[in-house]
């Protein structure tokens, strides 16, 4: 379905969802998906449905919570919000991500 270079790297979707919720406040699934697509600016072809398993995973871990609400255009939707534990996790993962990225970058630079 997706070409390999546009697939969401494994594990990064969780991080993106957390970051989105931390920055934007409570959002419904569609809103989160759109926000991530905008941020990717077309670099990422997200199957919007795939964020639901990710949302469930994060909720099970207690990093986000959810409740029914009403969207801007008056549709019933489930809104997700980041929890305190979620914020702590976000900081941790963001650091880990930075370290990983810089390490991989260094490796790649060495090679070239």
């Amino acid at each position, binding site marked *: 379905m997706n070409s390999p270079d546009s697939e969401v790297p494994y594990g990064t979707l969780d991080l993106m969802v957390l970051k989105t919720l931390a920055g934007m406040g409570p959002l419904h*699934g569609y809103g989160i998906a759109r926000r991530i697509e905008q941020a990717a600016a077309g670099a990422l072809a997200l199957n919007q449905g795939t964020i639901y398993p990710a949302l469930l995973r994060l*909720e099970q871990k207690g990093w986000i919570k959810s409740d029914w609400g009403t969207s801007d255009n008056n549709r019933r939707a489930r809104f997700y919000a980041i929890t305190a534990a979620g914020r702590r996790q976000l900081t941790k993962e963001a650091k880990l991500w930075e370290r990983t990225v810089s390490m991989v970058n260094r490796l790649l630079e060495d090679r070239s």
Partner: protein
Amino acid sequence: MTGIRVLISRVLDLLFSSRRERRLEEEITSHLDLLADQYMADGMTPLQARQAARRAFGGVEQMKEHYRNQRGLPLVDALRQDFRFAMRLLNRNRGFALTAVLVLGVGIGVNNMLFTILNAHTLRGLPIPSSDRVVWLSTIDDRGREHGLSFNDYEAISGAVQHYTGIAAFEAGPMVLAGDGRSADRLDGAYVTANAFDLIPATPLIGRSFTAQDDTPGAAAVAVLGKTAWETRYSSDRSALGRAVTVNGVPATLIGVMPDRSGFPGTAQIWMPLSARGRDARALQVFGRVAADARVDQAVTEVAGIADRLASERPDTNRNARARVVPINDRFLGRASDGVWRAFITVGFIVVLISCANVANLMLDRSLLRARELAIRASVGGSRTRLLRQLLVEGVVIATFGAGVGLLVAVGGIRVFRRAIPSDALPYWFDYSIDWRVLAALIAVSAATVLVFALVPAIQASRTDVVTVLKEEGRSGGTARRRILATTFLVAQLALAVVLLAHLAVNVRLSRPGLATDTIFDDREIVTAQIALPPGAYPGHVPLSAFYEALLARMHAVSGQTPAAVTSTLPASGGDPAEVVIEGKRGPDKDGEQTALAIAITPAYFRALDLSLLQGRELHDRDGNPGQENAIVNQAFADKFLTGATVLGQRIQLGTSDARSGGTGWLTIVGVAPDIRQRRGRASEPVVYTPLRSNPPATGALILRSSMNTAAVVLMLRQQVQALDPDLPIFRARTLPQVRADLDWNGRVSSRLFLFLSFIAVALATFGLYAVTTHAVSQDRHEIGIRMALGARTHQIIGRVLRRLLVQVSFGFGAGVVCTLLWERTFPPGDPNIHAGDPVSLTLVALALLGLIAIAAAVPSRRASRVDPLLAIRAE
């Protein structure tokens, strides 16, 4: 932390799965709507917008599946599906399901019933708090007999130990409670040290228990009553406390009431301080509680060391005696490792294995019928482990229902078992109720049965070659292999049944009428009752004999024509073994003791039993007087010790092997009596009947023959006894058959239990034989049809069925003989002449198996003979 949280939320998902599913559905709808709104705002038509939304969202069903995997516990979910499927399947095949559950339930139930008995007798422990920290002290003499401790030894030991909270002693024995204007009661009682109740610990319901002050010589006599005695004698009246009574003729005050079962252990209902018994006690029962900071093995070593040191310091009183210190549970309960219990466990497993083998064969049959279904499932991608799991889940479902049936069978079986035992015959500490051990055993055995009955058929079924089965319409897929398996299961269960049948044969042979000499006389109208003359009121021979003579005269007045008698020992109630010396003959052989049971009787004992002597005469009124020391021996005595000689006029001497009573002088034999069985399970033993007058017992049994109602006779006896001594109760009033039944319950119960087990085993094996044969016939319909079409006669067809059956049973019998011989090697038989592995028993078993064949073959062979060749061949 997070891990646990995820687990909890997944479990919650599992529980509320339908709600979660709805939520997912709603979220997707809402998402798609929002997307579509967006596209419409961008200028699409509603239809286009919806399509675009679906594209952007991705595969809805795939996402749902992904989501579901994330949610809940996939394995549990799958198991739940398997479970539902299994339930549906079993519901569709109710006949199969019911048979399997019942067969398995009977096996599990019998196993659990045996375990419950084993548990009560060995594992549970005494009803004493932390009974594993209480030890029992006694001594063993050089002949291996156990004795109590003397008071001096008890004092020395309890003063020297350090690893104990305390050591207590008691002496149990009957006590007569009287002296308060009510009729005398004879109760089980005990003299105890003051600390005994505290060590158990047992606290009084009302009043107090003994203090050290009560247990000092010269203290005012006090007594504590048991709850039952308090209820029956004083109607639970609190004013019983402080009441003046007499116990064994000694004035005492009641100071407290103990809950029932406060023994150490024992059935006592009345207690007095040991000091009231005096310091000359020589057979004290002694127990100690190990201190909290000491180890039990330390404490055992310590006290054994002290006891052995005492033995060497006082060689005169402690000669040849070794100390024996064991945990109290070992002293009063059996050990699961004892031979009899190992045999019990083995039998339990034999029954459960037979039923497993049966169910395994049912499963094999069914997996054959399901071969097509399994093949299809395999061909559309069901993995082998998945198929295996499905089949095992079915097994688990059957086993679970089987366990339920088993529990019912076990509870019912125990109830019947309890009813077969007289209520006072077993110590109260055997508790047959269901506890966690019984339930754990039930679950463990049921789980194990799944492995036996479901695993092999499941592996077999999951191995199905898909192509063959689908091509051949499921008829012959793996038939040969299956048949070998089915035959193996059948042979195994037959072999196990043979072991039980062989023992049943022994049981039947041993209980043949000729061997049981206990009903040579009509004893239905003989009423007996016992009296115990307290030594305080009847010191020595003269007052005892005077009492018996006066009583006998009164009994004769009541009984009229038929004579009454008094004896030291009733028929079937044992007797005191005594060494026998015969005038003019050498003493006992070196290898064996020459002993006979000594029983004291009054004149006309045999007439009271309605027996006539074989030779000579009954004892006279004068026998037992000086110059008239005569005795009667039984036929077995004459046969064993006086072969070929004239019996009458021979002189014998009895030295009771118990050194307390000195034995007799020379007795002249004046009569020979027929053999009356005194002990169960023994052939006729030599008995010497001596005149009661020359050695009157403190406890005597009254015998009265009367056609009147038993209760009326008992009432009369009581009146006569209490006319002579108002403080003397009579006890164990019952007819002679009741005496016998109460004493014989052990043999009766165990042989009935065995009969029951054998019946179950044989019924299960017959059923197995029947099922396998029926199945084989239905498998062979095609072949039978061809044979019939070619002109085979009915008897030839039936012959074929029977031949196969005969071969299977022969294999089973052969394997069974081997098992029986192995069994006898592990559990040596009691009687070397009549045992399970001997040719007679095995021949009986073989005959029984032929009977089984006839039963199992009847229906299937008829079915085989009625196969319609046309239909059978066409059915292919």
